[in-house]
């Protein structure tokens, strides 16, 4: 626990110093030295703090529950931090990704001009975000949790707003701020109601649901709905996901990687923590699990289909985060269903699958966002229809992106498959539930999962294929700067996580299942079944890794055999590779512009899923004998935003405008208001 505190102190001290540097930079004329110092200090201290934090999380036995109580000056709440398995597993991505993103961000910002950006402020808010996340995941008191939550929600606003010269970026950060605070409103109501009905703000006392014994089912249901709203807004559960596709493309890439890989997990963490409080063991009503499962499935399907429609690489990745969050919520829903129906297999594997997928998602999504940032850095754009052929110019970056894409498309033997395998196994036991409708519900949800993963493979084939393969479509890609290993080395850690998460899957499964049993305890009667299920699934995952490794060796052997065959023919591979043009079926005058683009790649699926994808196609067709230029423009605006939230906020604005008639700026009338109020109160006081 001392080590953990040290990590927090390092981060806090660095935040103070960077705040000083930021203040200095804003009062003095901008200097390159200040900028460089802030960048160096901020990134190095963030990385150091995260490394210490990683050691603190990994040190000691995984199941040790540590509590640290510090003096606290406020009348409500207490300053209590704690580490238990659930906190530990969510802190792993926070510290791991926080470290990688700090180093990568430091490298990419090293040439920033001091006139344009105040790097001290940037790193101050980065460190604040890290601190907020760390405290959220380790707070053992509701007031402390809410405070840290607020810090964690506010800091990204300033991080997203990094390139504030662009009006789109400013819009995006406002959308983020509004969404974050709408979620926070639900959370304040949640904790207020919790405090009122349980009489304590200490999360440790609330744990296990003993404190809520007297609360009626109505209160519990209200608490559950508030928790899903508040935490779902952070996690990007549909329809509260609208901030993700706006915020992630606008933010600098190391920030989007951290937000997508670690911060949105806070939603899942909060939900699991509050479910532990709410479901006083096995009494969670059945509809909780089913509603979470359905919400997760809907979010997953919507997310992957909207992602397929995007042409901005970072927007695509943001929608894919929404999809992955949906999968995790499906896991939690399945776990709750298992708990309420007394099925140890479904309960254990549902929660474990969600946690395992969360860990793996942090790895590959962090890698992909950082790669997208490098693409932006090298070419100046992330619009896929302008790119292409980057694999040749940036071979290392291309390989890293290919690895991440294969992992997130759930291809064995990489890490994405392990999480989805466990989730699928959880739902496979659906036939043991009572009643055909429940059995079919779980099995059809699994079919939905299969559809999502099939679409994910198509999505990432597109994301990698259109961006990195083929010929450069425009000058952006053709004139890409080379990216050397000096700037790319921080990507090594998440890349390693993608491979290790697959080949060492039994290890991570053991960690996640242990945490699941600890965070969502099962009644004693089911414990034996859960332990047996764990051993069996661990065996299965062991076979998956073994076969994965065998498959890799087989692929390597086949490639070697091909090389040998070619060598024997005496035709050097290298020479033939340079000499011929791609066969264009006789068409000689092909240009890179006739290649398939992202919109044309997803066109067959867009035709099938048109109602969900919501493509807006604008075309100017060829007509007449001497036609003009033809044009085709395909965009995919978010319909939930334009159809649900825009009218809602416009209505709010109209209401506020209507209220303006009482606010006119005439002081004597304001004094009259005060007088009227005082008289009114006096009359009321006399009356009672």
């Amino acid at each position, binding site marked *: 626990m001392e080590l953990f505190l040290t990590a927090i102190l390092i981060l806090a001290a660095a935040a103070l110093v960077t705040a000083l540097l930021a203040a200095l930079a804003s009062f003095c004329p901008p200097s390159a030295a200040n900028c460089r110092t802030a960048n160096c200090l901020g990134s190095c201290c963030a990385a150091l703090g995260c490394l210490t934090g990683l050691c603190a999380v990994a040190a000691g036995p995984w199941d040790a529950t540590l509590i640290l109580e510090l003096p606290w000056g406020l009348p409500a709440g207490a300053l209590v931090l704690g580490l238990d398995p659930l906190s530990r597993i969510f802190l792993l991505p926070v510290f791991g990704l926080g470290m990688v993103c700090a180093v990568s961000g430091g490298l990419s910002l090293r040439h920033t001009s001091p006139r344009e950006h105040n790097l001290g402020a940037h790193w101050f808010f980065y460190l604040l975000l890290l601190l907020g996340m760390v405290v959220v995941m380790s707070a053992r008191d509701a007031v402390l949790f809410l405070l840290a939550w607020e810090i964690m929600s506010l800091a990204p606003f300033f991080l997203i707003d990094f390139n504030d010269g662009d009006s789109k970026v400013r819009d995006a950060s406002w959308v983020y701020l509004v969404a974050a605070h709408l979620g926070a409103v639900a959370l304040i109501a949640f904790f207020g109601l919790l405090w009122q009905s349980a009489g304590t703000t200490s999360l440790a006392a609330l744990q296990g649901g003993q404190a809520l014994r007297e609360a009626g089912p109505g209160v519990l249901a209200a608490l559950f709905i508030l928790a899903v709203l508040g935490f779902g807004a952070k996690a990007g559960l549909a329809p509260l996901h609208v901030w993700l596709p706006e915020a992630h493309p606008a933010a600098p890439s190391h920030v989007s990687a951290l937000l997508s890989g670690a911060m949105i997990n806070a939603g899942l963490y909060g939900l699991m923590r509050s479910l532990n409080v709410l479901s006083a063991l096995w009494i969670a009503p059945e509809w909780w699990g089913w509603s979470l499962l359905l919400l997760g499935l809907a979010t997953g399907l919507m997310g992957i289909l909207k992602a397929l429609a995007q042409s901005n690489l970072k927007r695509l990745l943001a929608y894919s985060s929404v999809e992955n969050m949906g999968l995790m919520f499906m896991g939690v829903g399945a776990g709750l269903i298992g708990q309420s129906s007394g099925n140890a297999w479904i309960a254990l594997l549902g929660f474990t699958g969600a946690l395992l997928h969360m860990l793996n998602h942090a790895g590959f999504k962090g890698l992909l966002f950082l790669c997208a940032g490098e693409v932006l850095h090298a070419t100046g754009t992330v619009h896929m229809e302008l790119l*292409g052929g980057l694999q040749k110019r940036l071979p290392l970056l291309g390989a890293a992106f290919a690895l991440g894409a294969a992992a997130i*498309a*759930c*291809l*064995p033997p990489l890490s994405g498959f392990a999480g989805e*395998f466990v989730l699928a*196994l959880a739902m*496979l*036991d659906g*036939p*043991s539930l009572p009643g*055909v409708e429940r*059995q*079919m519900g779980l*099995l059809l949800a*699994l079919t939905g999962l*299969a*559809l999502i*993963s*099939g*679409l994910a*493979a*198509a999505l990432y*084939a*597109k994301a990698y*294929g259109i961006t990195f*393969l*083929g*010929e450069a479509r425009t000058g952006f890609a053709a004139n890409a700067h080379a990216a050397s290993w000096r700037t790319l080395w921080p990507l090594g850690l998440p890349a390693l996580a993608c491979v290790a998460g697959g080949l060492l899957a039994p290890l991570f499964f053991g960690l996640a299942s242990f945490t699941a049993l600890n965070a969502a305890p099962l009644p004693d009667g089911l414990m034996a079944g859960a332990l*047996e*299920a764990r051993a*069996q*699934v661990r*065996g*299965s995952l062991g076979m*998956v890794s073994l*076969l994965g490794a065998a*498959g890799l060796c087989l*692929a390597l*052997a*086949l*490639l070697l055999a091909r090389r040998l065959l*070619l060598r024997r*023919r005496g*035709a050097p*591979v290298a020479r*033939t*590779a340079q000499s*011929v043009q*791609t*066969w264009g079926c006789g068409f000689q005058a*092909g240009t*890179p512009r006739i*290649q*398939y683009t992202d919109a*044309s*790649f997803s066109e067959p*699926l867009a*035709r*099938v899923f048109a109602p969900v994808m919501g493509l807006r196609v604008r075309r100017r067709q060829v007509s007449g004998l001497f036609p003009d230029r033809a044009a085709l423009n395909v965009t995919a605006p978010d319909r939930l935003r334009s159809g649900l939230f825009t009218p809602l906020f416009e209505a709010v604005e109209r209401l506020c405008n209507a209220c303006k008639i009482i606010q006119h700026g005439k002081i004597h009338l304001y004094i009259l208001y005060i007088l009227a109020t005082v008289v009114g109160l006096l009359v009321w006081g006399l009356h009672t």
Partner: protein
Amino acid sequence: MNQGTVFYLIQLFLALILAPLLPGIINRVKARFAGRQGKPLLQTYYDLARLLRKGEVIGRTATWTFSAGPGVALAATLCALALLPLGGAPSPLGFGGDFLLAAYLLGMGRFALILAALDTGSSFEGMGASREAAFSALAEPVLFLVFLMLTSLSLDLVRHTGQSAELVAALSLSAMFGGQATEAWLAGRAELLLAPAVFFVLLLVENCRIPVDDPNTHLELTMIHEVMVLDHSGPNLAMIVYGAALKLWFFAALTAGLLTPPLPLWQQAGLCLLIILALAAAVGVVESVMARLRLTRIPHLLGGAAALASLALILTQVR
């Protein structure tokens, strides 16, 4: 090594050797229907031998993704095949949930080939890749539906015999194709016969046969798989051709596994082999008597197959 493993290895060896025979049979049947003599039955073997002896031509746009794609795809298909119980013998590699791994391994192979196609920078191959990605994404849930029906059947069996410890083993391909499905439909559960029917539709879709795709031409704009592998040559093309044959065998063996009743070992293996060869002939018949569907109709075909599979699933659950 026990007798079962040896028997399985023999079966696997047979599959690896005989797989290229299936396209030959299909072509022969089609030729007979058209009143022609047709290519030799062993034509695919000759093609493979010829391709392995040739050099490769690689476009200057292509990178390592293009060169490595076919090898990765073939390795994934081989691994998937090794999980499948063949000729009634359970796979020694089988484990609980291995059908998920097999399905995703096939997906891995497809992913590698799609990337290889996009790597050429040709719009033809982009077209093929896009269509392959779309239709395989739609075929995935159908495959899962049939597998789910079979797992719930084998879970039922485990529950009836009361060996709850074997829960995870019941989720393996070897348990699903252990013969109980055939016994059940022989005993009158007709809904189980929908499963081989859906598998046959999936065989046509996944292996790019008529009515989904025409494997004979590659210059038609309606092509899917053939146009996607247009630029490969030499050993790489050999790997693709062989991988396609193995995939055909994979789906034929799935269908055959449900149709063969449990018999003594060698008889069952022989019957299974016969059914696989007969399925190849059936594909030939389908290709001869049907026209290819319009591309926009293919999702309807898959939707129909999904409806059949869901019906079978519901009926199994209701029992």
